[in-house]
């Protein structure tokens, strides 16, 4: 993997902050975009732009083909058998809400058991808390140990569950969950399963056939694509049985004054004019990632995180959250600087051109169950280097000096 060549594809990495090189370590929040994706979106508007599915003029036909082609690419990317199982949404949050509204409200009733984990991002937490409250269902949590891994024996809780939803990779600890086992257990119990792949799909091979989930959600902007485009994968039989959650154009095949017939999947779930240019950008992002190879991306990030675990771990007063073993975690490293609030860490580093995230990272229950105060997070991607980690550590030492800790 040629990181220098990759870096050249990202125009933003040439930007200087206060005369210093930009060091972008906030990939867990969103990734930067390569020129190939920027051009794909811009060329779409320059050459092809039209509404899809509803015109027979040449531009509409071209736009429709491009939109469908992106669906095919995403389908192949996650090894789905059928592109109809790919629904385009705005983001992972909307994908998960679609499942909650269309599947959850119909299928969950009083006394049913929903199981999620303590490490969920709020987008895979709040919908189930709301649904459980509304329906009188019980919500149980797979609990975490002090390293942030799901505790031994917790999968017992899946017994008798109707629905199980877990994150593939934690956006705080970087822990990679054994979603194959979780989904297999769910399936043996007759429970429907959802995997939040927001932090895995951009960074490692995600194969829905081997995971065996019923639903999988992820978001384009964390994997080189524009904002405003997300994906929900759903098993065809389940999607067919569900009612739509947004109503309007494109999602019906027949509309009458007092009745209608739903369109087939995926169109049933894509009411209104979708984010066509976003889908085109996502297709181009998938091409870009596949060209590098997901195995190579994972290997690169594993190397970076091992390096960071070792170097950062050696700094006095810095404690790293999550497992030490880089094979159990993704390219995310979250830490505390003793005596300095994470906001102040991020704010001082920002003046040096380093972009990091601080706070609860939309995962407050995880912080509470692991007994953590707000934290600082560095998250890596294809364009990051060991030299950037060295520069980060150098500046963290400066922060400690400024605060006299």
């Amino acid at each position, binding site marked *: 993997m040629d990181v220098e060549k990759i870096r050249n594809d990202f125009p933003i990495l040439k930007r200087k902050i206060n005369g210093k090189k930009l060091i972008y370590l906030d990939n867990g929040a969103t990734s930067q975009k390569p020129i190939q994706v920027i051009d794909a979106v811009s060329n779409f508007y320059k050459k092809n732009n039209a509404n899809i599915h509803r015109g027979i003029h040449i531009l509409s036909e071209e736009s429709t083909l491009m939109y469908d082609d992106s669906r095919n690419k995403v389908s192949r990317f996650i090894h789905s058998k059928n592109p109809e199982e790919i629904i385009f949404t705005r983001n992972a949050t909307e994908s998960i809400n679609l499942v909650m509204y269309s599947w959850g409200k119909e299928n969950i009733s009083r006394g049913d058991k929903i199981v999620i984990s303590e490490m969920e991002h709020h987008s895979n937490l709040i919908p189930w808390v709301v649904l459980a409250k509304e329906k009188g269902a019980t919500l149980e949590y797979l609990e975490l140990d002090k390293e942030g891994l799901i505790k031994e024996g917790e999968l017992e809780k899946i017994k008798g569950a109707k629905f199980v939803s877990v994150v593939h990779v934690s956006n705080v600890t970087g822990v990679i969950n054994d979603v194959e086992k979780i989904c297999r257990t769910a399936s043996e119990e007759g429970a429907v399963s959802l995997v939040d792949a927001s932090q895995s799909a951009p960074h490692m091979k995600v194969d829905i056939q081997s995971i065996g989930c019923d639903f999988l959600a992820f978001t384009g902007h964390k994997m080189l694509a524009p904002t405003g485009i997300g994906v929900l994968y759903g098993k065809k039989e389940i999607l067919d049985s569900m009612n739509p959650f947004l109503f309007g154009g494109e999602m019906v095949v027949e509309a009458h004054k007092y009745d209608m017939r739903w369109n087939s999947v995926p169109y049933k779930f894509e009411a209104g004019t979708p984010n066509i240019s976003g889908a085109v950008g996502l297709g181009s992002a998938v091409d870009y990632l596949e060209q590098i190879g997901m195995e190579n991306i994972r290997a690169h990030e594993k190397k970076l995180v091992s390096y960071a675990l070792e170097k950062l771990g050696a700094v006095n007063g810095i404690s790293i959250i999550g497992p030490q073993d880089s094979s159990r975690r993704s390219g995310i490293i979250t830490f505390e600087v003793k005596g300095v*609030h*994470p*906001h*102040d860490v991020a*704010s001082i580093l920002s*003046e040096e051109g380093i972009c990091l995230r*601080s*706070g*609860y990272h939309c995962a*407050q229950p995880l*912080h509470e169950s692991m007994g953590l*105060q*707000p934290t600082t997070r560095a998250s890596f991607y294809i364009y990051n280097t060991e030299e950037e980690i060295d520069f980060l550590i150098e500046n963290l030492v400066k922060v400690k000096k*400024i*605060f*006299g800790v």
Partner: protein
Amino acid sequence: MDEIARERIIELYKNPLNFGTIPDADYTAELRNSACGDIIRIYLQVKNNKIIDAKFEGEGCAISMASASLLTDFLKGKTPEEVRNLDKDDIQKILGMDLSRNPSRLRCALLPLETAKKALAGSK
């Protein structure tokens, strides 16, 4: 942020002013910034329509703590009406920092003022 402003903020972070409680406070309130976990509780003592004492407790970043220190100082001698009229420009003046290009830091700086307003809106 320039060096002098930063040093002053860090000094206040380490040695805050008016840190503590007023056991028989007339007005008190607590607010959290859920994104970052900052938490501020403010205590106000009012006599003849004037704030005669102000204290705070809490945890947060250097900006929110410094803002709470300087705001509680500033409040002494003011009327509740004057406090209700304070806005984000006033807070930046009190802090001696321009945060107009740092919207998230501005949220930290504003938390103590919002807490003070919430306290005064409550019943005595």
